[in-house]
């Protein structure tokens, strides 16, 4: 090794409550190197960074294995403050800025340049004046280094996101001792031209000898600026490549990997040509999962998967069609147009939804299992009601019978239909959500992240139930999931969403390279 390493991470491992999320990670970064870390959601990128930055969440859950060596010296990083003292800076994905402070004030926060005054000589440093002039000069210098022409005295509130991002970076490079900066998905929120500018300034920073750890899923950016690239998958390091020795395709393949387990319809099924659901230019304003004009066709009896990375808009599609978030565009159900933004109408048109936000939108936690199961059907389809004169009352016996049937069919582990849903485990709660959707006897069933946060056994049961519904009852199912492997095991076709749009539709046995590329927002290889 020509140059000594700045940072070495050796044998890093971490598990949350017995579930390993990182295993035996080794990293080696030299001064001035741009090192990219790529991987799918849940691959362990964020956990690794949290360890490096000494975040509370790591230490409150039992610390981690392995060691971190900085400049040849073993360091114990147990708090973000310590990480900063050592010289590790971080540019966060969510901006850590005070909106009503000026750019200078944000850059210099808690590191203000001070000027002694009369009172401070008596009462100490706490009441020294701020040396605004010096602070502005410093900030200007940092901003100029980044090539940003914005005035340092404007307040952060109302700035375009690109400028906020640059303010964060300026804060990091203004720190005199900074040796390394971690960029966590810095281009995710930027427009293309801003992203280019950012990459330029990252190169400029690296040339000054500051190492950069660059976390992203955009493979073209990785290839364009990184020196070395480490790929993580399922908490393991699957490879570290030099830029010259690799290309986008290899990285995509490494990132996705073979992890497919066929559960159903072994052969590619012949799908009917009838269209059950069609969207045209569907725009959904779901915070964090924005959908920008999706065109999608779902065929009758199909099991369609929607995949993609978090925050790209895949969960927004189902939420938009079901009327949970404000949306525009056109949606047809069996050829007739659907009026959007009305959950009741969507349900009356024969659709049901199992939400990804189980505890937030998916359940009445303080109510009984039986009420949770029947309420949608009761409210929207007037089932389980008895009429007396003008009034409709619940059919207590009918509800009880139906709940018992569902509990038996879906194997919901509970003390009885009257048990409160909040006392159930995650997997059983999910089954209650599915039972509610089934009670409506929908033609089209939307399921979002059905296996998130539930244990392996329950996962399998949930997926098998969905497959059974699809095959035996001919129910059209649209399943959204972050786990590509899961989608590939059950779906007929998989639509991959990137930046609010469908970047492509692949068969479940499509190549890893293509899946990886589509997720990274690039066109699939021609003729592949």
């Amino acid at each position, binding site marked *: 090794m020509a140059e000594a390493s700045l940072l070495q991470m050796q044998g890093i491992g971490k598990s949350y409550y017995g579930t390993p999320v990182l295993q035996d990670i080794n990293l080696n970064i030299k001064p001035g190197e741009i090192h990219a870390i790529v991987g799918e959601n849940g691959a362990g990128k964020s956990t690794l960074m949290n360890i490096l930055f000494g975040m509370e969440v790591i230490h409150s859950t039992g610390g981690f294995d392995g060691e971190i060596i900085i400049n040849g010296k073993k360091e114990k990083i147990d708090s973000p403050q310590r990480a900063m003292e050592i010289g590790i800076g971080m540019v966060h994905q969510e901006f850590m800025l005070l909106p009503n402070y000026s750019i200078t004030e944000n850059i210099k926060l808690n590191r203000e340049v001070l000027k002694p005054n009369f009172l401070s000589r008596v009462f100490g440093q706490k009441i020294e004046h701020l040396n605004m002039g010096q602070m502005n000069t410093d900030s200007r210098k940092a901003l100029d280094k980044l090539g940003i022409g914005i005035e340092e005295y404007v307040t952060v509130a109302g700035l375009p996101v690109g400028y906020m991002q640059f303010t964060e970076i300026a804060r990091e490079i203004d720190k005199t001792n900074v040796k390394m900066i971690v960029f966590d998905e810095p281009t995710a929120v930027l427009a293309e031209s801003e992203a280019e500018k950012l990459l330029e300034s990252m190169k400029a920073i690296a040339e000054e000898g500051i190492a950069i750890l660059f976390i992203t899923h955009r493979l073209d950016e990785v290839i364009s600026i990184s020196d070395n690239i480490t790929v993580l998958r399922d908490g393991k390091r699957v490879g570290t490549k030099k830029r010259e020795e690799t290309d986008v395709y290899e990285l995509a393949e490494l990132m996705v990997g073979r992890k497919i387990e066929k559960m159903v319809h072994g052969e590619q099924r012949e799908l009917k040509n009838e269209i059950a659901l069609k969207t045209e230019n569907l725009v959904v304003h779901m915070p964090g999962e924005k959908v920008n004009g999706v065109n999608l066709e779902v065929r009758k009896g199909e099991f369609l998967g929607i995949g993609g990375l978090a925050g790209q808009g895949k969960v927004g599609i189902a939420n938009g069609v079901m009327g949970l978030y404000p949306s525009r565009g056109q949606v047809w159900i069996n050829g007739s147009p659907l009026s959007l933004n009305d959950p009741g109408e969507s349900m009356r048109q024969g659709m049901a939804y199992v939400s990804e936000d189980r505890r937030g*939108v998916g359940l*009445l936690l303080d109510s009984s299992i039986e009420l949770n199961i029947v*309420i949608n059907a009761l*409210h*929207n389809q007037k089932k389980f009601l008895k009429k007396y004169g003008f009034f*409709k009352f*619940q059919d207590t016996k009918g509800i009880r019978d139906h709940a018992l049937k569902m509990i038996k069919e879906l194997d919901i582990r509970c003390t009885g239909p009257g048990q409160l849903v909040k006392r159930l485990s995650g997997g059983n709660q999910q089954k209650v959500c599915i039972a509610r959707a089934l009670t409506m006897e929908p033609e089209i069933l939307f399921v979002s992240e059905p296996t998130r946060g539930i244990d392996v056994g329950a996962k399998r049961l949930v997926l098998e139930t969905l497959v059974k519904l699809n095959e035996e009852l001919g129910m059209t199912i649209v399943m959204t999931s972050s786990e590509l492997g899961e989608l590939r095991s059950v779906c007929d076709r998989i639509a991959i969403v990137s930046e609010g749009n469908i970047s492509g539709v692949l068969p479940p046995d499509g190549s890893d390279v293509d899946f990886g590329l589509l997720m990274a927002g690039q066109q699939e290889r021609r003729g592949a």
Partner: protein
Amino acid sequence: MLQNLAAKFMTNFGLARLIILGFFIFLCIMAVVFQLDIAELLTSSLARIGMWGVLVLAMLPAISSGIGPNFGVSLGILCGLVGALTALETAFRLGGVVELSGGVLFLLAIIISLPFAILTGIAYGWLLNRVKGSEMMIATYVGFSMVSIMKIAWLFLPYTSPEMAWPIGRGVRVQISLAGRGITRILNNFLSFNIGDVVVPTGLLLFFALMCFLVWLFMRSKTGIAMRAAGDNPRFSEAAGINVNRSRIIGTTFSTILGAIGILVYAQSYGFIQLYEGPMFMPFVAVAAVLIGGASVKKASITHVVVGTALFLGIQVVAIPVANAFTTDWASMGEISRKIIQNGVILYALTQAGGD
């Protein structure tokens, strides 16, 4: 094992409730020790429970629909009072032509107060929908302000019946006796019977039971179920196609109506209509009672209403004579302990609101 059971019991039952129950039992033992007239205490406990029951019940639709304990039930009370005064005025104006019996007057008061309560409830529900998250605070102040505004209104409303109006000047009196109209204790005395020396106010308790039954029925109707869902999880309910704001308005209106009926029941049992300051702090008693019964600011049931009313008003009845028996210097101890319990329990419930 035993410790576990005890711990479980404590979390289910709640420390506050346990202390209050203990205090109640202590008071009862003291009453026996001081050889107070137990029959008399039981008689007035039963009357008190029936008297307050409907007002406490008014909390149920409010809590279920998600607006929390209705600290602004004084709005309903004011509507009930308007109904009562208007009914009395009607009787006075018709005097000599038709004599209205007490029962008819009571029903008339309810019927007149209903449209007021419905309109007020809708407006009040609409207001509460704009201040989601701080309903309790807003409700308290809406209640206070309306009571104050009505203080002015009582002076100007055109009630002329001599039993209501001040002898000199304008406006209605602070306290109006119902004695002359045959309404006093009309529910209490209906089918009333004695067990030993204990008087059971059958009509009053039956009326309370009837109201509970109606609320119970409502909670099992399609609208009622939607309302409960809206209170449990508004985001879920939106997704289930339920109009959450509408459900909250229905809950608020229902609560206001029960408040109006509740004050009429209260007044007929008490024998007087209290205006001006009268309704100012009544909501706190009702809120405290339902909370003592086991309700939280998010969840309540009829059982909570009944248990809470019995416990809290039982304490009120027993505490005063017991305190008097200790020493006459402590005459106000009964009232003070009631206030401590009332406000303490509300405070306790509010601190629990975020938990679970």
